[in-house]
């Protein structure tokens, strides 16, 4: 007992510093980046509680100081705007839908790719499926319009065949399917990277041993591959939940007029139209803060749940 305690006792910080300084130096640039681009801007959230006027005083900082505090008025205004609740509902529906119909796809694709024996074929396929990730949303939406839109390839072919083409790009009822299809096309390949990396860490001897014991392909998948991937899957799931209220911006901005606000307004476009374009930054910050608060809560809950089922989650229990 005493021995355990003594090994746990920490060395004086000076000694630790002497020992660990190369690590600290290595972490410094990253920490600075976080500080400058994440923590400092976070302070700007104070405008959520202000009647913020960016033109008060002689500098941006003075404007922040001089703008009067109005307590929770911005939040009251936000919650009493029906369009906000519509946007929240749309966002949550899209997140839920994509959690079921998009999230598993990269795992499946990674498993498929991993089973391809020829290295050359695998590299070729990987390159192709990664590619759309680097296209901007304008390009992706234009591509879909040119392929599936009313004047696109599909519609023109159908018309030549004497069939009235269906409305794919402008139907509010099927918009959820459309945006998910776009996300799948754009990002499914990119999403495989982490899973492929995780797959490569599974000890091949396990497969050999299992095969020697007569385990078929499905049993190996079920008892070796998936358990090997589980920590990564849980980690990404938790992080995705933290982003539950962010489902993208440009994709919806571009297609908003095509299907209408009722279908396409998500929280980010709501903030854009109701706060950024109208210069009502306090109101927008309130919406952003609400979003961040919900995200944090979801991460904490999901992480708690992960611990309960025996996973590490985002961070381990101390």
């Amino acid at each position, binding site marked *: 007992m005493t021995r355990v305690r003594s090994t746990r006792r920490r060395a004086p910080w000076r000694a630790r510093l002497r020992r660990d300084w190369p690590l600290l130096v290595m972490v410094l640039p990253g920490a600075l980046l976080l500080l400058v681009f994440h923590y400092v801007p976070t302070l700007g959230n104070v405008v959520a509680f202000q*009647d913020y006027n960016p033109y008060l005083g002689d500098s941006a900082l003075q404007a922040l100081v001089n703008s009067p505090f109005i307590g929770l008025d911005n939040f009251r205004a936000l919650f009493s705007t029906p369009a906000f609740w519509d946007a929240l509902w749309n966002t949550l529906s899209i997140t839920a839908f994509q959690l079921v119909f998009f999230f598993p796809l990269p795992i499946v694709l990674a498993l498929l790719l991993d089973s391809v024996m020829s290295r050359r074929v695998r590299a070729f396929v990987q390159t192709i499926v990664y590619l759309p990730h680097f296209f901007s949303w304008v390009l992706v939406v234009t591509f879909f319009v040119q392929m599936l839109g009313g004047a696109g390839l599909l519609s023109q072919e159908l018309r030549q065949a004497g069939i009235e083409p269906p409305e794919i790009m402008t139907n509010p009822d099927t918009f959820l399917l459309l945006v998910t299809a776009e996300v799948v096309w754009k990002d499914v390949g990119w999403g495989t990277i982490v899973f492929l990396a995780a797959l490569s860490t599974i000890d091949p001897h396990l497969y050999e041993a299992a095969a020697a014991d007569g385990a078929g392909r499905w049993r190996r998948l079920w008892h070796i591959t998936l358990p090997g991937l589980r920590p990564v899957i849980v980690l990404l799931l938790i992080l995705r939940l933290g982003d539950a209220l962010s489902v993208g911006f440009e994709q919806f901005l571009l297609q908003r007029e095509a299907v*209408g606000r009722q279908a396409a307004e998500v929280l980010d476009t709501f903030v854009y139209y109701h706060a950024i374009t109208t210069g009502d930054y306090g109101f927008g910050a309130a919406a952003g803060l609400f979003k961040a608060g919900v995200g944090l809560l979801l991460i904490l809950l999901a992480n708690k749940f992960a611990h309960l089922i025996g996973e590490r989650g985002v961070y381990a229990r101390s």
Partner: protein
Amino acid sequence: MVDTRATTSRRAFLSLVGISAGAGLLGGCGDKAAEGGATQKLDALAGVLPEQGALPAGIPQPDVISTRPVADGYTRFPSSLIDAVAQQPGAGGKPVTAMTPAWGPAPPSGSNNGYLTAINAKLGTPVEFSVQDGNTYAEKLGAILGARDVPDLLCVPGWEVAKLARLSDAVKALFEDLTPFLAGAAVKAYPMLATLPTGAWRNACWNGRLMAVPNPTDNPFPFTLFYRKDLLGGPAPTSIDELYATGKAVTDERKGVWAFDDIFAMVQMFHKAPGTKDGWRLRADGTPEFKYETQEFRQAAEFMAKLYAEGLVHPDVVASRGADAKQLLQSGKILFKQDGMGLWQPMQAEQQNVTPGFEVAPVPLFAAGGGAPLAWGDDEPISYTFVKKGLGKERVEEILRIVNWCSAPFGTNEYNLREFGAEGKQHTRGPDGPVKTDLGFKEIQNQYFFISGRSPVVQPTPQTPKYVPDMLAYANASVTNLEKDPWDGLKFEMPAKYKAGLVPSDDQINDILRGRRPLADLDTVVTAWRANGGDEAREMLGKALADSGR
């Protein structure tokens, strides 16, 4: 000045703050404009405006005299050009930064652009441009203003002004007050600026001070309905029924041809819905009424909804904000497009080389219900050029000399270089005047035009000899039906609540046009619009009229 309002009045409406010429008032009464809305009486600004100066000697008389606010026109290019600015404007200081809009592909920047290099050499102090997409320019403006990070020279297009929140606050906090440099006789140091019309200068005042250099308009029309004359076959439609029938006849889905772009603004104009101050007019009893509330708007919405419902609008336009309707018109995939007058000449000049016989022309205005048509329009400048605050007197003077050089009128060598670049590079000089080369089309994107103003004229171009007579015929015919502005001479900053309230209303009207809601929902839209700032704006506009004794 610190905002002294009670902290709880965030969304409260402040009644109109008039700015009169009364002695001490000029300084900064615009503060409360931010959220409550404000009115400036432009007549009261006489004291801060520059004296009108004459054009440089040797500029020929125009060939076509127009009805104002349409500018006069030249059908032939002057045989000899004059030098208007003798002294090199720049003192060789560090480059002047500027931000301007451009539509279409961005021009090469810096030393990669021979046009910029040529003019910067003349200026002595180079101007470095940040050219931004004109379609999303308001968003960029909102961001740099809010961040208080503005370039030395900033172009704010006139049509974006209404979209910018708390602009009068922003102008006061971020830009140099040009009154001491330009008011009265002081403008004589910048003789090209003195040639700009007084009406344009009046509009360049904020908070009672002269804050920007205006870029006067050569025509007052925000929208014109253009059509592909070469493809239509017959004459342009002359009534709303003909427009519909023509649209129906030319739409051929199998060939990938549809009749229209989104032409709702023109449809409203044909139905004589009001367009003043973005859609206000007076009822018979003298109270202001907004376009949403009028029968004309309802009819226009019904007509536009019919065009959408029957599939006469190109599906790309329906499906995505990113659709390039100009490209669709050029390639003949649509035959009608609404746009500003600026579409006409450049498209004609460029496309007639691509498509033999290419001809784009405006549809003459008509009224849906018969009788005289209505033309929306105002005499407000195309754009305003602001100078960053706190650069120091000498630097501001240098910058103003540069703006002055760029503002030289038609008929001068400076204008020619600014408009067409260098001879043998960006243009070649034929017997009828300069002809832009491909390099010229690529490099010249109105960069210097958007940081200056000029005494406006409609100028000839050798490639498009019909443009000046055709354009002025259309413009001078339309200007006789220009909508009367009951608030002429008053400049408004509308209440923030009203501006914010327009977003949901526009969304819902968009739903109605595209058939996602019934037309009957327009009543609900109006009710919501009234509650969300509409009635407050009405009150403000009504009070402004009463206060000015009309």
